[in-house]
């Protein structure tokens, strides 16, 4: 039985549909925010960066709308089993999307510094990292919409690529800094941006875990094959 199959109370179905639509719209908005943030950094476009920062309030409002609808449904419908997991998942996904958008906004705060330092190191690495997480976000949102756990697991595993790429970027910028101390300022800024993108990847893995839990009613990490390091997505901002 899926969450789409009909309830006796039709208003309940409409609310679930509305919740689903809100998550979809919020996910779409987060995608645009990341895409624009990466472009603002790569193209050294300060205007675009300001636009991203201004749009963050829209993402926050959508999270508040989702929270409010979910709260109302918990109180009025007293959901059980798949419905309960669905509503809890919506709350968690909305929270991750909000954090993702915050990271996009943080990247844009650095975009101004990067734009001013046109002679700084190349940003192609960040562009690649950005493309990777953007594709992951798109796929995890598709997985969420379709309740596709295979796709959710596949996205979850792809976070390793993000971590590896972030690690190699870190080493690359470290080399620049050692070569010439005048690069330290620019490289540190770029490292902050790279870190933001890497953190977005972690939130995407959270969403993948949430989708898995919603469908299977058990944590994804309990279901991973041997040899997969389940701690990869657990690391925090301080790493």
């Amino acid at each position: 039985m899926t969450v789409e199959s009909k309830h006796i109370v039709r208003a309940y179905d409409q609310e679930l549909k509305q919740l689903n639509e809100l998550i979809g719209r919020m996910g779409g908005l987060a995608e645009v925010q990341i895409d624009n943030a990466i472009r603002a950094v790569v193209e050294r476009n300060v205007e675009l960066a300001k636009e991203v920062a201004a749009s963050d309030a829209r993402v926050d409002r959508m999270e508040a709308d989702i929270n409010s609808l979910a709260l109302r449904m918990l109180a009025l419908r007293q959901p059980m089993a798949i419905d309960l997991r669905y509503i809890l998942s919506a709350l968690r996904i909305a929270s991750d999307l909000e954090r993702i958008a915050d990271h996009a906004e943080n990247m844009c705060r650095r975009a101004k510094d990067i734009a001013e330092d046109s002679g700084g190191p190349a940003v192609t690495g960040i562009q690649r990292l950005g493309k990777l997480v953007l594709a992951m976000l798109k796929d995890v949102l598709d997985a969420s919409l379709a309740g596709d756990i295979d796709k959710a697991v596949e996205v979850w595993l792809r976070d390793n690529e993000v971590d590896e790429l972030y690690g190699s970027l870190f080493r690359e910028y470290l080399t620049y800094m050692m070569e010439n101390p005048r690069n330290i300022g620019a490289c540190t800024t770029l490292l902050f941006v790279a870190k933001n993108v890497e953190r977005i990847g972690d939130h995407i893995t959270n969403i993948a875990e949430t989708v898995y839990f919603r469908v299977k009613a058990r944590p994804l990490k309990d279901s991973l094959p041997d040899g997969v390091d389940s701690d990869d997505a657990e690391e925090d901002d301080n790493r």
Partner: protein
Amino acid sequence: MAITQSAPSSIHAHRTSRRAQAKMSARDVNVFYGDKQALFDVALDIPAHHVTALIGPSGCGKSTFLRCLNRMNDVVEIARVSGDITIDGGDIYALDVVELRARVGMVFQKPNPFPKSIFDNVAYGPRIHGLAQNRDELDEMVFTSLEKAGLLDEVRDRLTEPGTGLSGGQQQRLCIARAIAVNPEVILMDEPCSALDPIATARIEELIDELREHYTIVIVTHSMQQAARVSQRTAFLHLGELVEVGDTQDIFTNPRDERTQGYITGRFG
């Protein structure tokens, strides 16, 4: 009648290793009302000192099953019960029915105090079973039962007043006091809160949780939230068949059977 070990394939027993010892057991229970079959091969263990909730849509057989446990169906002329039901391993049909009903008490949907005083309502059972040697012992039994039912403080000064003069919730607790006065081992409750307001319901639910320490409880309820709140085990019946039984937490968060999922999420047609 032989005990069948294999349960019907549609029954999923979860976490059986954690399950407490069965106080009562039912195997291959079939009930007919005339030509109509109300229960089909029901097999269920009732663990000791647990609250087992029976849920399902109207007419699914949950009350019928409850009534099998203390042979209440015996008094229904057209009812025919087959299968094995045991208490502490002994066949309930080998016991005298009066003794069985003293061991397996019952509380009904609508509070039904006798048209007697509050005291006499509770003293009724101990009197007919000759449990008290003298007035002091009887007083003790009545007071202890009222205390356990959470009613003593409210009725201490008016024990001679009629039981029917109490509020609905108090009457239901009086019926519970009456049921436990004969020191039963199992208490069957057939929708005990359906005629009560939410506050009285909450008090009964709190009481059920306390009673579990001393008694084994089986409750039929239409309220899934109530089943989820008060029970440790839940059995879902549908069209006379036991569809699924498991730990309450599992049944309400991750049921195995589509029919259970449909019922608890409100998708049943």
